[in-house]
């Protein structure tokens, strides 16, 4: 797609932008809306998380009751009885078992929810992609789209399975603990409040710094990966020019920048936990001391201290854990934003209402719609006044003064007019970037032009439903794309309900049957990603067979410029000419034989048709085409 590439935006690695607060909550809210379908289950999960932490806190609080019981004295004697202790331990155990069961249950349910939500997001993204215009794919790096399916959904997995439960857990544990602490001893509880305030401040300051450097680090990673990708891909060129040293030298400086950013980001992330943990110990020491003072003053009992210390860790540990989640949450929000960006991209617009139907055509040319395949097709055209007309699908294509640009201020085509009658072959000739591919992009509405400029069987092309329009055409592209699956599957891509016989027939038309039957498993041979185990020529033959099985009245061919040896070329040529029989063909020509066969040749230069006519006419014109042809014929 050289034509488009020149206008493509730089395919930079996208880096997560710092999120604004309001936006962040919006994104999280939207993420959670995916749980709406399971709102009862989701509510139940939240309930379980809260129950687990509350039961945990109450269980821990039993320590106070039990230790207090140890110190209870009646009539100068300890009232201690084993039976009573067992009973108390049993109650404590009951809370703990409850907390554990709730913890398992919420994790299991959350897993189910999380995997469903992730699948929903993935599917929605994929479905959206199928509906996006070709322009989107021409202007976005594939690697970047792919990373939304991999990295970004993965951060969401962590968000749902870790961050979200931990956040709820932290909040409910901290609240429950506070209630318990205030019940136990309000004076000591106030110290814990002070501690909490300090801790949250630390999380905010250090976590904020860490987040800032993590984003910076992401940028550096992008730069680093970009450099690595470029120079590993081009490694052979580096070697041929002996540029190894220089390449490594440049890498060094980029690598060093990543190193610094990583050290900073991880440094802040690494100290958050020790600071929080040790603040916890600091308060442990303070509470032990002050608690001791209170005990000596008779304002507290030893059992207060005993219960306070573990409960206090109940506050510090979840906050510590939560602090580790901040980066994940930030990354998840950035990831979700990128996923929503795809989902929110406007779909390929299609206001077409003229559809393609099976038709019966009688001797007088009257067309009636048919339920079953008749081999004949017609355009079904509903009009404003409610009437229906049928037009036979013939493959008549007309351009009237078509101008077009991929971007607003960069025109690619200027006033292109042409007509192709059914069964005619139109060849486009011209330099790279002259606009050849662009014209074919308009015929199948990969890109749209203003109303009425292009007519297909006399119908304004913009009125035809895109899917039906494309069904009436077949493309064989320069870069042949095969899919993982068998050879037969790949041919059948052109007509999903084709029988085995039809597949073999199509392969025969394309001249591909011979080599396919010599493959290890014939038509059932599995093709790996993009047909890498076939030669380029063979892949093209399969693509031709794919077009042959679809058997539409209009064909768009982009001849491969890549080097194919003469013998293979002859085979492909034979396949192509068989395929072209009786069809309207638009071909971007690179071969003399193709051009000679064409009914009309359009010579394109910088988006304008500068010459048109048959080979003979153009030769006698002695213009650009003549010169081009001279170039082709050179070597006297």
């Amino acid at each position, binding site marked *: 797609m050289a034509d488009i*590439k*020149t206008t493509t935006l730089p395919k930079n690695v996208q880096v997560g932008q710092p999120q604004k607060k309001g936006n962040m909550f919006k994104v999280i809210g939207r993420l959670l809306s995916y749980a709406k379908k399971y709102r009862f289950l989701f509510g139940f999960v939240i309930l379980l998380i809260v129950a687990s932490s509350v039961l945990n806190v109450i269980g821990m609080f039993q320590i106070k009751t039990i230790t207090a019981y140890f110190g209870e004295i009646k009539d100068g004697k*300890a009232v201690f009885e084993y039976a009573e*202790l067992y009973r108390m*331990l049993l109650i*404590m*155990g009951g809370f*703990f078992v409850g907390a*554990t069961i709730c*913890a*398992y249950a919420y994790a299991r349910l959350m*897993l189910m929810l999380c*995997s469903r939500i992730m699948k929903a997001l993935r*599917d929605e993204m*994929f479905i959206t992609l*199928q509906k996006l215009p070709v322009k989107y*794919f021409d202007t976005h790096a594939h690697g970047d789209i792919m990373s939304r399916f991999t990295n970004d959904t993965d951060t969401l997995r962590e968000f749902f399975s870790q961050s979200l439960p931990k956040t709820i857990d932290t909040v409910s544990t901290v609240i429950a603990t506070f209630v318990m602490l205030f019940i136990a001893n309000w004076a000591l509880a106030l110290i814990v409040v002070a501690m909490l305030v300090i801790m949250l401040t630390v999380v905010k300051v250090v976590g904020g710094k860490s987040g800032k450097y993590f984003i910076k680090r992401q940028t550096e990673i992008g730069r*680093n990966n*970009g450099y*690595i990708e470029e*120079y590993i*891909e081009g490694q*052979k060129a580096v*070697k*041929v*020019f*002996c540029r190894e040293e*220089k390449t*490594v030298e440049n*890498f060094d400086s980029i690598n060093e920048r*990543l190193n610094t950013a*990583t050290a900073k980001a*991880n*440094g802040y992330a690494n100290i958050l936990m*020790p600071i929080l943990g040790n*603040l916890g*110990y600091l308060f*442990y*020491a303070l509470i*032990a*001391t002050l608690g001791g*003072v209170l005990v*000596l003053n008779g304002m507290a009992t030893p059992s207060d201290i005993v219960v306070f*210390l573990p409960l206090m860790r109940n506050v510090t540990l979840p906050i510590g854990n939560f602090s580790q989640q901040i980066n994940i949450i930030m990354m998840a929000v950035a990831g979700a934003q990128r996923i929503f960006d795809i989902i929110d991209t406007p779909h390929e617009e299609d206001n077409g209402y003229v559809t393609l139907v099976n038709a019966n055509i009688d001797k007088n040319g009257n067309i009636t719609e048919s339920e079953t395949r008749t081999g004949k097709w017609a355009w079904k055209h509903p009009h404003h006044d409610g009437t229906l007309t049928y037009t036979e699908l013939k493959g008549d294509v007309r351009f009237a003064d078509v101008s077009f640009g991929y971007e607003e201020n960069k025109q690619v085509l200027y006033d292109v007019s042409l007509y192709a009658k059914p069964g005619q072959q139109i060849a486009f000739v011209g330099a790279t*970037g002259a606009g050849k591919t662009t014209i074919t992009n308009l015929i199948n509405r*990969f890109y749209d032009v203003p109303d009425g400029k292009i007519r297909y069987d006399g119908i304004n092309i913009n009125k035809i439903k895109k899917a039906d329009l*494309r069904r009436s055409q077949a*493309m064989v592209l320069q870069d042949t*794309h095969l899919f*993982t699956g068998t050879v037969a599957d790949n041919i059948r*891509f052109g007509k999903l309900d084709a029988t085995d016989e039809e597949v073999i027939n199509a392969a025969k038309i394309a001249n591909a049957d011979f080599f396919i039957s010599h493959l290890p498993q014939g038509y059932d041979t599995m093709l790996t990603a993009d047909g890498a185990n076939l*030669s380029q020529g063979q892949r093209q033959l399969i693509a031709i067979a*794919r077009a042959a099985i*679809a058997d539409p009245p209009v064909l768009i061919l982009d001849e491969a*410029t890549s*080097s194919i*040896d003469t013998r293979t070329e002859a085979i492909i040529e034979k396949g192509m000419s068989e395929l072209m029989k009786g069809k309207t063909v638009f071909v971007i020509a690179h071969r003399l034989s193709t051009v000679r066969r064409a009914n009309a040749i359009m010579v394109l230069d910088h988006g304008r048709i500068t010459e048109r006519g048959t080979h003979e006419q153009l030769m006698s014109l002695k213009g650009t085409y003549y010169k081009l042809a001279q*170039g*082709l014929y*050179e070597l006297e």
Partner: protein
Amino acid sequence: MIKLFTSCIGKYKKYAIIAPIGIIFEVLFEVLIPFMMNYISDALNAEDMTALLSIGGLMVLFAILSLICGILSGVTAAKASAGFAANLRKKLFLKIQNFSFKNTDKFSTSSLITRLTTDVENVQMAFMMLIRGFVRAPIMIIMATTFAFATNVKLALIFVVALPLLAGTLILIISRAHKRFKTLLKVFDDMNAVEQENLIGIRAVKAFVREDYETEKFVAISERARDAHVKAERILIFITPIMMMIMFACVMAVIGFGGMMTFDDSGFDVVSLTSYLTYTTQILMSLMMMGMILVIVVISRASLTRIKEVLDEDIDIKDDTADENLIVSDGSIDFSDVNFSYSGDSDKNVLNNINLHIESGETIGIIGATGSAKTTLIQMIPRLYDVDTGSVKVGGHNVKEYKIKNLRNAVSMVLQKNVLFSGTIKDNLKWGNENATDEEIVEATKAACAHDFIMSFPDGYDTELGQGGVNVSGGQKQRLCIARALLKKPKILILDDSTSAVDTSTDKSIRESLKKIKGITVIIVAQRIASVGSADRVIVMDEGRIDAFDTPQELLKSNTIYQEVYNSQMKGAQQNG
């Protein structure tokens, strides 16, 4: 791992040492703090306020010291691991730069890229976890257990039961989860493949209106991924509840047995119970941490293996023994009895018994069908691959006698797959010669018919090329690559199908200007018969052998392959007169 570590840590060694030491002290203080509770309790029993306050003060001091050690180790661990990763990346990058073509072919470029990026990240993560967590957790367990024993031996027996129990379940869970996670990764790979194919083939999908078909395919594999995900994590989620269960059991045991002990004469009291409860959390948490780290280490082990594969790869083209001062004196080339196969297996020879002599200054064309080993043949000249048997001589000396740099500076090659790098046009051209003057650059671009189109850009020679040169067309790219190769002022210039996207007339004028350069041997590999027709002599390759080597006129008379190609490409011309 250790070997790799010592070789990559370099100047970050001090950080790698400080980090664990800091952690040891941090842990020591952390464990001391609850131990002090025993003295608090004594002070409480003695109702001694001064003792209470001084012990309390000491505890606060310990906490502050622990904080300092913690920060120190956190910062140094980050520095050490980031530095380690940087060194590792550099080492890998350097190694790959030194790879021969054969080495590079063995690994695909995409796999090399993943090794340099994702795999290094994984190892870095594991490294940081190791120097912090794997020091911290065992020391914490040892110290906390020791102090627990020091406080009360009988009660410490609880840990003797709990520890192996928890460790055992963790190992069981992790080992079972590992297998399922491997399956999960495989399914994710498959899913990505479907997605990637769809992206690459989106035009085919749209042209054939197969959006629904593709969606069905994706939804099916997406469901498989969901299923594998649930299966893998279903095991992991047992960790938390089991951990909670054991911890709760320990708490209850400590309270129960410890409580009873407060009534015997062991001197154990209610306050000492709290330090015990703290030890319980410390020990079990540490064990959990070890489990988590194990998971990460297991994941990173796969990455580590992949990195080591690259580092351990033998570079097969070496020039250690070559003479530094030997330079290529002229552009003559000799092949004698050359055999070569990419696999090293002589049954699969790609080049068979090649003998040829090319005079300095000749223009040589090479034609032949795809797969006839044209590219392979010419790659022997700048020693991009080494012959299996026989010898290749350039300028009268075996290519192995030259330093690779000296050889390749004299043999300039334009690859079939042209590569330009991000930077300006001028930057890219200067690859040929770092010190080229503007005049020299213009001279080269004019010879390659590139000057005019470069000047048509608003920024001329300072035009930025995107990654891979996306801002220029295929033909323009090829011409820039030829100009770049010419700037080297080579003795031998090899064009490997380098004008396929250039129109025929430009192709012709490039060839003409190359002919004007004095004393340079030009080798042109081409599919177009026109491209080799003006050569002094043409090599016809057929299945790894030289079928003929003669002037084009002679070949047209006598060589059937040449005639066949000529006729198929020229038929139209003759008919047309």
